[in-house]
């Protein structure tokens, strides 16, 4: 998506004034305490996002005409910093930064009108239905079919690992409209309402023991042709649309977050009197280096976008850098805690409610979800370093 630089009513403000205004608004409209009960918490998140939307205080990178703030990149960074400071809860659902830009770029005016505002306002929770049991990294192998009948597509098949699938109001999916052999040339991008007859969502218990994702079955589900984004059989190129620099503006938050987590780990090392152990000191120093590098990388990417208009090489490596870091950090914490490290959170013996162990388990997904590390490495090698393509891989 082209970067929106028209900041309409913000133009007269200086950056400092803008920051002050955002900060004030968050302070006055603070989301309050996070409810414990999962259902209450969902309602609380939705209510806060609705209030931000109504006050035009959300969607920093989104165009103004779709309810966003249309901020310049520099202002998006400021916004993100203030949102992190105010601990604004993340929106529910997945892939807002993926589906919104796709609709903005390829959708019809009616589609934009119908979906973008409600998405941002969290009136509709969106989930990503790409992966299938036989199609993960190899997405072009997907088999969920959509057969055209008049103004409708009839959808049959199964999606899997759909994050928050049980909460979804809407799925954005990839379906096969071509022959099975057509691979990426026979794929169509379809938006499917979760309450359509013929859809069954089954929560899928994950490695943590809870059900954060689900499997979704489509049995002769009727989907209006109006729900198709782009042309039939031409959905594949849409897969890669994402909000230009949104991730870059958000990367700093991750650095800030891990700064805090590492500080807590260092406190734990001190508390347990392990600080004099040379090996532990060396490991901690290594994490200290990396948590700083994470911040430096993020600043550099932000600077590159501001100065050169594009994020540069540091942005392509930052995700791998962070995922390796977060896994190793938690692996270290669990090992360092010894027997106390392996106690799960229900137990009285658990250190800090078993958070390090939870983190260890949860970060197993960091190198799988949203494209595995192996696929990331392929992409970096081919697209950044220009190494020859793997003949078996489809062009994206």
């Amino acid at each position, binding site marked *: 998506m082209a970067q929106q630089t028209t900041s309409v009513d913000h133009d007269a403000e200086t950056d400092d004034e803008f920051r002050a205004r955002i900060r004030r608004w968050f302070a006055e409209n603070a989301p309050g305490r996070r409810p414990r009960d999962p259902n209450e918490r969902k309602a609380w998140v939705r209510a806060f996002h609705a209030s931000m939307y109504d006050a035009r205080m959300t969607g920093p990178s989104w165009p103004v005409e779709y309810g966003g703030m249309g901020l310049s990149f520099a202002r998006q960074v400021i916004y993100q910093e203030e949102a992190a400071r105010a601990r604004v809860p993340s929106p529910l659902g997945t892939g807002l930064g993926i589906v919104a830009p796709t609709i903005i770029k390829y959708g019809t005016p009616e589609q934009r009108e119908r979906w973008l505002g409600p998405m941002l306002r969290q009136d509709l929770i969106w989930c990503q239905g790409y992966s299938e049991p036989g199609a993960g990294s190899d997405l072009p192998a997907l088999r969920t079919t959509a057969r055209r009948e008049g103004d409708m597509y009839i959808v049959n098949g199964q999606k899997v690992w759909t994050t928050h699938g049980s909460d979804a109001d809407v799925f954005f999916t990839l379906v096969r409209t071509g022959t099975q052999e057509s691979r990426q040339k026979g794929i169509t991008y379809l938006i499917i309402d979760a309450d359509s007859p013929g859809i069954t969502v089954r929560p899928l218990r994950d490695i943590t023991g809870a059900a954060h994702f689900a499997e979704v079955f489509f049995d002769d589900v009727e989907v209006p042709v109006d729900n198709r984004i782009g042309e039939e059989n031409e959905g594949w190129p849409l897969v890669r649309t994402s909000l230009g620099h949104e991730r870059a503006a958000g990367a700093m938050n991750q650095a800030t977050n891990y700064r805090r987590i590492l500080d807590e780990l260092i406190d734990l090392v001190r508390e347990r009197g392990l600080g004099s152990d040379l090996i532990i*000191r*060396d490991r901690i120093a290594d994490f200290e280096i990396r948590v700083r590098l994470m911040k430096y990388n993020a600043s*550099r990417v932000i600077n590159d976008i501001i100065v050169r208009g594009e994020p540069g090489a540091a942005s392509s490596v930052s995700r791998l850098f962070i995922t390796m870091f977060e896994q190793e950090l938690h692996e270290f914490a669990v090992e360092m805690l010894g027997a106390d490290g392996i106690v799960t959170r229900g137990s009285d013996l658990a250190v800090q409610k078993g958070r390090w162990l939870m983190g260890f388990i949860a970060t197993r997904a960091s190198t799988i979800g949203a494209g595995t590390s*192996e696929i990331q490495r392929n992409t970096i090698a081919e697209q950044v*370093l220009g190494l020859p393509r793997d003949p078996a891989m489809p062009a994206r």
Partner: protein
Amino acid sequence: MITGWSEEHDQLREVVRRFLLEKSNPERVRELADGGAAGDPAVWRQMAEQLGLQGLAVPEQYGGTGMGPVELGVVMEELGRALYVGPYFSTVALAAQALTACADTTAQAAFLPRIADGSLTATVAVSDTDLGFDTTDVATTAERGGGAEWTVSGTKRYVVDGGTAGLILVAARIGDEVGLFAVDADQSGVRATPVETLDITRAVASVEFTDAAATRIDTGDADAIARAGDLATAAFAAEQIGGASAALDMTVEYAKIRVQFERPIGSFQAIKHRCADLLVQIESGRSAAFYAAALLADGDPEGAIATSAAAAWCATAYAKSSRENVQFHGGIGYTWECDAHLYLRRATVSTIVLGAPTAHRVRIADLMEV
């Protein structure tokens, strides 16, 4: 707030890169390495006169351009990339920065203009037994009198460009205190013996001082030597990342053209993935070296940790990148003709110059009060 490289930095980088492409190509590097790695005096002059590189970090009142650690980092990265042979690191990153970190305007006025115009080369020798700034490792002594203001005696085992530098800034002990002394290398009390290290592109000498005439440098506050060490270390991290980057580029170029099993080897993931991991390490190292320089330029208290972070990270990245470069060139990579060994040599020695990664991590743990 510290931002990042600007367009002016890009221009500086471009100018230096183009210059080095001509003056420091692999054939020239090999010739100079064979000649003892002293460097090419004509190129040295051009660097000073045409590009003003020696005066980059020298204040304007002393004939420099008054830029700082960030700009020096840009230049060092390019020098590292080209495996430049000559006394730039020692003269500018070590000596000129040490002089500016001190409070001695007399010494600055005496030496900096000559460094800036290229007529004086210099180096720094702090530790006795190492290539670092550790003042606890100083047994070399200084005494008053003896015909000169001070005399210095002792041996510095490893001094970068110690055999060719005109001026050596020597750390020496006066009782419990460690002071910094300017020693003119061109006197009978100074004797340099070349030390053959693995790196044939950088000269190191063992320097013995026997009642060598010296002038004391007023270091101002007690931290000046440490500050000089940090400034040098940040610049050196940039040099290392330049080398690491060049070694990766070399691997990538080769992986595109070398065909085995009817495919370019770069299409195999065993190679691809390791190259991608190197890029992750190298790009993060570039961020680290930049931030270390920028924080030091700002006098930010975070500068010390950032510098050690850059030092530990960039050295490791360079070592890894240079080893993979040999590996991915296969049999050719093990030959003298292939440039891969030049990077391997430079990287391996660089790992211990100004402190090994482990030493920098120890320092970080200390500074973090773990």
